[in-house]
């Protein structure tokens, strides 16, 4: 697992990361800006997403149409999104077109036109996207769980609210862009087939003169226990469940992540084996680690037809609590093999590597190597996992259900 990660900080504070993967023909980069939903004014929910959309509707020397046509011409696969703390843009392409691709990305971030005549169209798109979640109950369930668990500021959805989107003006977008799209705490990470020195020169040329206000760190995030039910005329009841865990930047994160792996990684994991394979209660059941700044959670999902929903919830909770009776050596061995395999396979994709590096830097301020990660995972033992469970037992539960009827929720001693 040969690996080299380059790091550089531009004088304006922007961090540039690079991991050469010369065996690939592609390059991929992620551009992470400290402009998330938490930065939105409370009466403009959805502004972060709307601003991102407006930035792509013409920037630098490119018209709105040019942006799309130029990226298509270059064969660039791209996506962009907004989370609680970030606006992110990811692009992947053949390595020979890195320069023109990054030029477009830089223009979008630094020199958006904010065309007045496109605001209504962007707003309508955003409103449609917000409305469409109503037909996807599982996604809606998680949106509601986030709101309930992380509160007014940190629980915001990137989709925004109807009022916020309706009220947002072009001036609001420009202000949001001015205040939150700044180089301090911005991260550009590149992975794939490239030359680091050339890439640094390119980023210096494109982003070197960028300036803006200083980054303001967010306040602590604290989970809020509770439960709610949204009535919905559906066959299935969707169950979204969360409890506290250590966050990504905690020294014991991989102990907690290991426990989630025992619950949900692979077909022999406890939730899949118990809830689906043995009892046939669901088609989908899963748990995953989730970090919001300094607040870690485990998020679980199960979907099942309404008459079996109570049993599904009860069995899911019991399975989570079954960790207290210990971890089997076989379970741990499987977990370690899975991690090793996925670290090796990560080398096959420049896209997943570049987004992982940006994520690592945002949370840890550094990029752990595969070697370090392997050593951390190798050091996990059945005893250490159990001890971690005892020190950080599931607590501060949140539950959201969507379906015909509410469920009884016994969250024991939270």
């Amino acid at each position, binding site marked *: 697992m040969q690996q080299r990660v380059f790091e550089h900080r531009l004088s304006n504070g922007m961090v540039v990361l690079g991991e050469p993967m010369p065996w*690939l*023909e*592609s390059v991929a980069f992620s551009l992470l800006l400290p402009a998330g939903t938490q930065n939105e004014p409370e009466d403009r929910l959805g502004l972060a997403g709307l601003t991102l959309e407006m930035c792509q509707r013409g920037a630098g020397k490119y018209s*709105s*149409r040019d942006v*799309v*046509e130029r990226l*298509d*011409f*270059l*064969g660039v*696969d791209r996506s962009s999104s907004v989370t609680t703390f970030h606006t992110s843009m990811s692009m992947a*392409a*053949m390595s020979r077109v890195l320069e023109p691709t990054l030029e477009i990305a830089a223009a979008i971030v630094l020199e958006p036109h904010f065309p007045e005549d496109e605001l*209504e*169209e962007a*707003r*309508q*798109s*955003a*409103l*449609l*996207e917000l*409305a*469409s979640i*109503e*037909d996807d*109950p599982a996604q809606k369930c998680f949106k509601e769980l986030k709101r309930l668990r992380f509160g007014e500021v940190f629980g915001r959805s990137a989709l925004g609210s109807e009022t916020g989107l309706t009220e947002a003006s072009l001036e609001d977008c420009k202000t949001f862009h001015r205040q939150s799209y700044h180089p301090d705490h911005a991260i550009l990470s590149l992975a794939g087939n490239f030359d680091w020195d050339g890439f640094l020169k390119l980023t210096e040329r494109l982003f070197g003169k960028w300036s803006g206000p200083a980054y303001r760190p967010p306040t602590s995030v604290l989970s809020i226990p509770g439960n709610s039910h949204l009535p*919905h*005329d*559906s*066959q*299935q009841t969707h169950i979204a469940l969360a409890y506290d865990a250590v966050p990504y930047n905690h020294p014991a994160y991989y102990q907690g992540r290991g426990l989630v792996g025992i619950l949900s*990684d*692979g*077909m*022999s994991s406890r939730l*899949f*084996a118990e809830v689906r*394979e*043995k*009892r*046939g*209660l*669901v*088609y989908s059941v899963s748990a995953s680690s989730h970090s919001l700044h300094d607040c870690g959670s485990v998020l679980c999902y199960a*979907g*099942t*037809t309404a008459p079996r929903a109570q049993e599904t919830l009860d069995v899911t909770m019991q399975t989570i609590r079954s960790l207290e009776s210990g971890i089997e050596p*076989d379970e741990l061995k*499987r977990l370690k*093999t*899975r991690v*090793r*395999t*996925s670290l090796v*396979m990560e080398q*096959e*994709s*420049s896209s997943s590597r570049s987004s992982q590096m940006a994520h690592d830097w945002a949370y840890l301020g550094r990029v752990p190597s595969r070697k370090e990660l392997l050593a951390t995972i190798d050091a996990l033992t059945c005893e250490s996992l159990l001890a971690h469970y005892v020190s950080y037992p599931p607590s501060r539960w949140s539950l959201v259900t969507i379906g015909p009827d509410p469920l009884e929720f016994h969250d024991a001693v939270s």
Partner: protein
Amino acid sequence: MQFRSEKLANGLEVIAEVNPEAFSMSLGYFVKTGARDETPEMAGVSHFLEHMMFKGTARRTAEDVNQELDDLGSQSNAYTSEEQTVYYMSVLPEYQHAALDLLTDMMRPALRDEDFQTERQVILEEIAMYDDQPPYGAMERAMEQYFGDHPLARRVLGTRETVSVLDPEAMRAYHQARYAPNNLTLVASGAVDYEQLLKSAEALTGHWKASQANRSLISPKLNSEELVMVHPPATQQYTLQYSPGPSYSDDERYVSRVLGTILGDDSGSRLFWELVDTGMAESAATFTQEFQDCGLFCTFLACAPDQHVENWQIIQQVLSQGKEIPITELELELAKNKICSGMILGSERPSNRLFSIGNAWTIRRKYETIQSAAENYRQVTLESVQRAFESLANRTGVTVSVGPAAPS
């Protein structure tokens, strides 16, 4: 990169694209069986069987199968379509033999009665899950309307009714007929030791007996009509139109795919600029769907119910303007770049190559490198796309719309 293929004495074909430089290898059994090979009473049996293949064999319990899949650190799964059932896993090269042993054993499942009853519940949940999401209902209904009494009308998951009464005995017979070595292809990609693969496959499947498995290819009698379904909890209106397109074995499909990209890709297409960029529709798309002997040109719209009629008219207009607004060189070039670049970027993972080479071989008996596969699109001419575009004006087919209320 090297392509290898051999046929074993029992009829099983073993093909591989060998790339010694790869970090991983992928392995899959492509079974030529799917919804179109089922009788109406047995609708859903191929998919049900796919689930049962993970439930244990003569040598392994269901738990053993799941644990071993994880022991190998594999990323594994399976899927069923109208025409095939595919089981696949990606592992580190050192696990090649163990992975093949497991996957091969899984092709001879125990099909125990009690597992059958549990798994039925899981599949009924899967059906309920899709029923709650309105666009899926429209797709299934559109297939049924379009193909009428042709086997391609069959729902891959089956229906609540057929799945509830499927019985283990009938499934065992179906398995015996369809999972014979002559109806399976073993496909591998990445850092494969081909000699070893062949030797192991021979040893593991040598006793498998060939069958008379075949597929009836009858021309569908195409229907043409419009249908509205009401799904009261829906908040958006979803409309899907199917009209004839080239089959998977027809080279014309490259033209059709390029045309679908120019007119209705999710970014930069004519429908995108007309309806999506302008915020009138959440999605407005054209794309193709191909089967062994026939194909579809599909049009999809998702938008607010009160804008549906107007948006649908705009789509009809855009698709009928072949003569008035011909395809330009620029549109053609952008579409080609987008398609080819997407293929090449995707091909960096051996797990993606598995499906490309597996599908090409099982349906067209052809191996293509990624470069030559991309070349098929590069060679599409402006004249051919223009001709296909103009012919859209006269298309007939089935339109199904689902939304919260019947149109007033």
